[in-house]
């Protein structure tokens, strides 16, 4: 009998179109992604193939989430079909076995659900064949068909996921006999997954998350986290690691649920719900005296527009608000928000204060998602409400106006959506309260709600109602709605339409900043909002004309009926709204297309290609070097206007005369050049390239003066704000922003490997190769790219009276004139031609340390960490001046800027520091060093590494600045921190490196040859140099650095390379450790250390004898990712912890290992709780969990 039910379930479904439609949908989704060059999901990048095993597995894992919706349909159908057709009484009176019925149906649905996912594999097969054939993607993007990955991903993801989810859905369905409850179950599973994602965002919880995630995605991600591109292309998901554990766990849970449900399952039908009000009737009052028929006053009748509106609004709002669906969605949204807030705002193990903008970001994205679901679902419900309840004929025969009822229904929809949003805001404020944050900015919340939420809800609410009315078929209407919500965006992005005037409900996004409020997009947002609101109202009014009053179905009859009852005022409103919409639309169009034209990303790309093709030939044309600059800058914050005049002195440092100057002007850039005794001989208006011919050649050693004029004034509003550096409060721009591009701009070239191939551009080296003999190449450093060496800078800068303007160097003079503040700054020491200008309404905290002014410029709301920042600057300077040498500026400034960017950056003596990091991080109870101190120490270190010595533009250059700065910062931290705390901090650097290399798009290079890649020069640099000082001694490494610095400090070209540093490092490394230089800096070396066994006995003198069996392997990675094992001959630490929390490392010894399998013996005075190899995690080992083991005493 089991087989009867099973096969019947499967065969019936196979005969129906549904399953094929599902398979088709899944296949189409995946196919589109596989053959498109622009869709990058599942971990495709660089050399990772479009159908690499890991990519296949990621697709399968992720699409399983969508697959759940299909699975719900199958399982729910299998469980409830008999009930829905009222067939259960017939079915269950036949002599069938309960378990055969139950499991037969279940297994049938299980098989069907997994079949849907086969669409993924079909799509991969088809995509790999068709994509290259049609030249949609290059043939090199496709690898061999990964059959094993197909099989294993099916067995590891599809089968168990559908089983687990099916068990829950089937259990719910058989228990509650309600489709809604089944879908709620599905939603709960998905929510569980999202919660585990939040968990995984914290590095310490990754292992937990890997087990908690019911889909196994987090487990698989963790297993493959550090896979190199090569491994991604070759390794199929395996029955091992966290993934296997996770799968077994959830399969087991599924089994338990299923058997419990089978046990509870019964053929007898439960009584349908008891009448709730049976007992209540006794309480109602006795019938009153018979009433006389009331006489209706004539005047009260027929003027009921508002009453009708209100009554429709009330009944519809109640029907949404009280519905299970709405309540469940609301609860989900709340759960998700709390979970997001709980796990969010992590930054190197620290949490930010829950400032309002953080809350807004979370709330808005979550609310808009849930409200859109509400809008889609209830737009159908409301439009069909009367008909679904068979009340339409009565209602339609009353003399109310259809338009009023439509308005009221839509209003109730939008209001209920808004209620959801507002509830989330309330939850956000409660969260703030729980965290002791009491600066409730209700106005900010509400403004954000109105501009970001309400407008969107109104537009989509009205438009979805319009769709439902027009389509006049509920489920088709849902389909069309979803099409508009998702597919339209994709379509427009394909055909390169970026104007927000076409993307329904889209407005330029604002981001709230404590410094700068809602920012420069506000005006545009206001106008776009009007445009869309009018569009929404218009579509609603038109919907009134198509409203199916009565029983008319065809559009013609609907029009005919409506016209009879819609009067002049209707058509007047229609005309008025239409005109208003057109007028606002024209205004928006004028501002965003005519006044502020923009290029689409494709156009931009083509320009880049053209630029490279036409002007690459001028890359090495000799140009005079910039030596002196005087800036005259006027900032008008309120008008978002900047005017700048710059006097430049240029000197011919080449050995032959120079007769022309080359510039690249951005075509929309408002820059004018004034070069005496010259004429413009070439100007490419489209690409901005121009050449000035000098009347008399500039002889070697001679100088010339030129002047540039820059003027930026925001006009009208834009489709997307193009200039985020000139702001009402928090202006922050670099010198390069107001100067013309000097010569050919290499940075403008297209860098993506696959795109370059598409445009037939030659392969592009990220950086010139590192070479020892580099006479010409070493004349350029990687910051100013050969256009300047050390420059003198003088700045006259003015701003409004309520702001402070900052330029590099010492402040020589401040005057206040005509309501403006004017400052004169001068750089104390020639520096790199790389600095910023800022203006905002700042508070200033200062401290004098050994003749140096330490200053923090901050927004008054962000005073909390300012003292610690001054401390950090002082500590950094103390260490650096002691170990590296003098500081050449008279001041060190930290300057806050709005959160539109999140970084800190070092310019000579000044360090702009984003509002989003540091200033709002909660440091309460953090008495030790932390990431804020680390960031400051890092930027302070750049005053040496980058601003005193700077690498030639060549591989390895950023090691000399970024890695050294990172190392210096670690040394500042180390002074007040234990080695174990340092290990806790460094794990983020290690993760950054290992993750970064796993998404390497080109090839991985050793630290010494880093090509300006963050994961190597920050992440790996920190780990390697920290380990190096641990092995050779802090003083030795510092001495090497100091000697290197002294040799090259503020030196004219040639600039040093990483090879030059090696010359200073080698003498400081003892012979026994020279191998470290090769392994760590010159090669890519990975370790695999494992502690296999620990045996512990107590000997006769009361001491403990420990025998450790360990495995130590060393591998070297080639740039393409291939791994070769090399014999180990390394010094490695062995340590013993007193506790299982690994907090007290009481014994540590460095031992020499020259065999893969080693047995080591130790005698200790006390019994350790845990033994570990490389306890401080100095060596780069991808799997660290197996480095330690609990110690068990054998009696």
């Amino acid at each position, binding site marked *: 009998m089991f087989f009867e039910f099973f096969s019947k379930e499967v065969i019936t479904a196979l005969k129906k179109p549904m399953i094929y439609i599902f398979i088709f949908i899944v296949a189409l989704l995946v196919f589109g992604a596989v053959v498109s060059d622009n869709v990058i999901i599942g971990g495709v990048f660089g050399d990772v193939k479009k159908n690499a095993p890991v990519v296949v597995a990621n697709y399968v894992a992720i699409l399983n989430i969508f697959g759940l919706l299909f699975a719900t349909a199958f399982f729910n159908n299998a469980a409830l079909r008999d009930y829905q057709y009222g067939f259960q009484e017939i079915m269950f009176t036949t002599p069938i076995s309960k378990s055969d019925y139950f499991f037969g149906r279940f297994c049938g649905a299980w098989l069907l659900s997994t079949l849907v996912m086969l669409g993924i594999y079909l799509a991969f097969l088809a995509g790999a064949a068709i994509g290259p054939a049609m030249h949609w993607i290059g043939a090199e993007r496709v690898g061999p068909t990964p059959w094993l990955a197909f099989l294993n991903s099916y067995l590891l993801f599809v089968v168990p996921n559908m089983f687990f989810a099916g068990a829950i859905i089937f259990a719910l369905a058989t228990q509650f006999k309600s489709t809604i409850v089944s879908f709620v179950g599905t939603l709960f599973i998905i929510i569980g997954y999202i919660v585990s994602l939040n968990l995984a965002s914290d590095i310490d919880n990754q292992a937990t998350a890997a087990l908690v995630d019911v889909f196994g995605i987090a487990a698989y991600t963790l297993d493959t986290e550090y896979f190199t591109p090569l491994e991604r292309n070759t390794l199929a998901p395996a029955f091992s690691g966290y993934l296997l554990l996770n799968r077994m766990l959830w399969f087991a849970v599924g089994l338990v649920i299923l058997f419990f449900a089978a046990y509870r399952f019964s053929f007898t039908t439960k009584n349908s719900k008891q*009448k*709730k*009000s049976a007992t*209540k*009737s006794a309480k*109602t009052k006795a*019938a*009153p005296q*018979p*009433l*006389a*028929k*009331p006489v*209706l*006053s004539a005047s*009260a*009748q*027929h*003027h*009921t527009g508002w*009453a*009708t509106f209100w*009554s*429709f609004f009330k*009944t519809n709002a*109640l*029907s949404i608000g*009280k519905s299970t669906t709405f309540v469940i969605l609301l609860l989900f949204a709340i759960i998700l928000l709390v979970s997001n807030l709980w796990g969010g705002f992590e930054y190197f193990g620290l949490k930010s204060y829950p400032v309002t903008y953080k809350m807004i970001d979370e709330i808005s994205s979550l609310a808009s998602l849930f409200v859109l679901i509400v809008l889609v679902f209830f737009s159908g419900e409301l439009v069909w*409400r009367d008909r679904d*309840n*068979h*009340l339409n*004929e*009565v*209602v*339609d*025969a*009353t*003399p*109310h106006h259809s338009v009023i009822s439509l308005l009221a229904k839509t209003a109730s929809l939008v209001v209920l959506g808004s209620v959801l949003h507002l509830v989330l805001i309330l939850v956000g404020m409660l969260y703030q309260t729980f965290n002791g944050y009491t600066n409730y900015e209700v106005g900010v919340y509400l403004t954000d709600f109105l501009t970001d939420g309400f407008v969107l809800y109104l537009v989509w609410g009205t438009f979805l109602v319009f769709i439902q009315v027009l389509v006049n078929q509920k489920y088709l209407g849902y389909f069309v709605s979803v099409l508009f919500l998702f597919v339209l965006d994709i379509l427009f992005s394909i055909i390169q339409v970026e104007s927000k005037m076409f993307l329904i409900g889209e407005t330029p996004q604002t981001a709230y900043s404590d410094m700068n409020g809602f920012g420069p997009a506000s005006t545009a947002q206001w106008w776009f909002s009007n445009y869309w609101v009018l569009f929404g109202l218009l579509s609603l009014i038109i919907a009134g004309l198509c409203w199916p*009053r*009565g*029983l*008319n179905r*065809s559009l013609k*009859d609907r029009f*005919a*009926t409506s016209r*009879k*009852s819609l009067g002049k005022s209707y058509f007047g409103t229609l005309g008025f709204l239409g005109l208003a919409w057109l007028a606002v639309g024209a205004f928006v169009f004028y501002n965003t297309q005519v006044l502020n034209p923009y290029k689409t990303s494709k156009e931009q790309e083509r320009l880049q290609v053209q630029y490279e093709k036409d002007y690459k030939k001028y890359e090495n044309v000799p140009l005079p070097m910039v030596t002196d600059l005087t800036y005259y800058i006027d900032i008008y914050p309120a008008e978002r206007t900047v005017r700048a005049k710059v006097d430049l002195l240029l000197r011919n440092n080449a050995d032959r005369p120079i007769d022309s100057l080359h510039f690249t002007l951005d075509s929309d850039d408002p820059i004018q050049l004034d070069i005496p005794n010259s004429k413009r001989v070439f100007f490419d208006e489209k690409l901005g390239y121009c050449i000035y011919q000098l009347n008399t050649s500039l002889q070697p050693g001679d100088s010339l003066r030129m002047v540039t004029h820059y003027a930026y004034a925001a006009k009208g509003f834009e489709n997307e704000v193009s200039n985020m550096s000139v702001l009402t409060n928090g202006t922050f721009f670099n010198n390069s922003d107001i100067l013309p591009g000097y010569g050919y701009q290499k940075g403008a070239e297209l860098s993506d490997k696959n795109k370059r191939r598409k445009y037939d551009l030659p392969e592009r080296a990220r950086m010139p190769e590192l070479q020892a003999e580099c006479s010409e190449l070493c004349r350029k450093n990687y910051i100013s790219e050969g256009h300047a060496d050390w420059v003198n800078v003088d700045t006259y800068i003015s701003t409004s009276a309520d702001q402070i303007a900052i330029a590099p160097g010492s402040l020589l003079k401040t005057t206040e004139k005509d309501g403006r503040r004017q400052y004169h700054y001068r750089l104390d020491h020639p520096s790199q031609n790389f600095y910023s200008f800022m203006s905002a309404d700042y508070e200033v905290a200062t401290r004098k340390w050994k003749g140096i002014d330490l200053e923090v410029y901050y927004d008054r709301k962000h005073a909390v960490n300012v003292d610690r920042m001054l401390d950090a600057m002082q500590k950094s300077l103390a260490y650096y001046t002691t170990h590296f040498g003098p500081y050449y500026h008279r001041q060190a400034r930290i300057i806050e800027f709005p959160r539109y960017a999140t970084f800190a950056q070092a310019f000579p003596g000044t360090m702009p520091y984003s509002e989003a990091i540091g200033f709002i991080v909660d440091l309460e109870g953090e008495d030790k060093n932390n990431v804020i101190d680390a960031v400051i120490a890092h930027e302070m270190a750049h005053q040496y590494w980058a601003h005193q010595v700077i690498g030639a533009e060549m591989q390895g250059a950023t090691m000399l600045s970024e890695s050294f700065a990172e190392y210096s910062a670690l040394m500042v931290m180390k002074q007040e921190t234990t080695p174990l705390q340092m290990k806790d901090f460094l794990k983020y650097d290690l993760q950054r490196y290992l993750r970064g290399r796993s998404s390497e798009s080109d090839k991985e290079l050793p630290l010494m040859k880093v090509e300006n890649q963050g994961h190597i020069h920050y992440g790996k640099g920190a780990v390697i140099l920290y380990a190096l000082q641990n092995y050779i001694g802090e003083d030795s490494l510092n001495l090497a650095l100091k000697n290197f610095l002294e040799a090259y400090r503020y030196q004219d070209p040639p600039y040093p390379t990483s090879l030059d540093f090696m010359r200073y490092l080698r003498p400081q490394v003892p012979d026994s450790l020279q191998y470290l230089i090769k392994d760590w800096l010159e090669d890519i070396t990975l370790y695999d250390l494992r502690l296999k066994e620990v045996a512990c006995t107590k000997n006769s003198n009361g001491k403990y004898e420990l025998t450790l069996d360990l495995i130590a392997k060393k591998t070297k990675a080639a740039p393409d990712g291939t791994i070769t094992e090399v014999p180990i001959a390394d010094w490695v630490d062995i340590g013993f912890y007193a506790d299982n929390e690994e907090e007290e490392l009481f014994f540590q010894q460095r031992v020499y290992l020259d065999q893969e399998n080693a047995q080591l013996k130790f005698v200790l005075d006390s019994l350790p709780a845990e033994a570990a190899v490389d306890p401080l995690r100095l060596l780069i080992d991808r799997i660290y969990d197996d480095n330690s083991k609990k110690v068990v005493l054998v009696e």
Partner: protein
Amino acid sequence: MSLLKITNLNKTYPNGTQALVDVNLELSNGMFGLLGPNGAGKSSLMRTLATLQEADSGSAFLDDIDMLNNPQAVRQTLGYLPQEFGVYPRITAAQLLDHLCILKGVANKNERRELVDYLLQKVNLYEERNKSVKGFSGGMKQRVGIAQALIGNPQLIIVDEPTAGLDPGERNRFHNLLAEVGEEVIVILSTHIVDDVKELCTHMAIMNLGRIVYNGTPADALSELNGKVWRKTIERSEKEAYQSAYHVISDKMVAGRPQIHVLSEVNPGNDFEESEPDLEDVFFTHIHALQA
């Protein structure tokens, strides 16, 4: 005294069904019964009069209101109880009636409350006014339906198959209600239950296949058949033989055996007894006449 005049009303559905074929009717105050089998076009006629459906051609005037072209005016003075009267979930009887009162133009809040109370009392649901209507029995729902049809001062009340599914007690109560309001206004009662018409209506029409096949008073209809209806109880096996030999207008089971009625100007003999004609005979006679 109102007058409803329907002239040459036609409606054909997109699938080709002729729902109304040259319908002409004239009726005034009082109960008007519209009889017809399922699918005769009764509901199409009712819905067209209730402004819910467009007609292809023809006209309908309620006094001087052009019903087909001025639906809003009709709706001001219309009470309508459709064949299917459903209710919203999560709403009480009083709330539902209040909502419908507003839609019918009763704006004053106090007046509305009085009216709702009055109507609820009239349909004997006052006790249940604060209960969810969704949980009401079929008869109770139908009473809510008639209550809403009485809102305002309708000059035209249309009720479409109102007694289907009601038990005899409910049905009697319903008839009493209708009879009471039917004295002052036009009430059109569409039904396929002959007894409803017999008990209530002063005028009637019979519809079949979209056409009016009889229009007059029930009494006239009966007198037309006087002495022409004959009945006989027969065996089941003889049915076909009788059908070919006589003009059989109906056959039904009486005490477990088939009884046939035949139409004949003279006594057909063969043990047929004369039968007092009833409306059912009228109904079948007219319907079969058309089909024959």
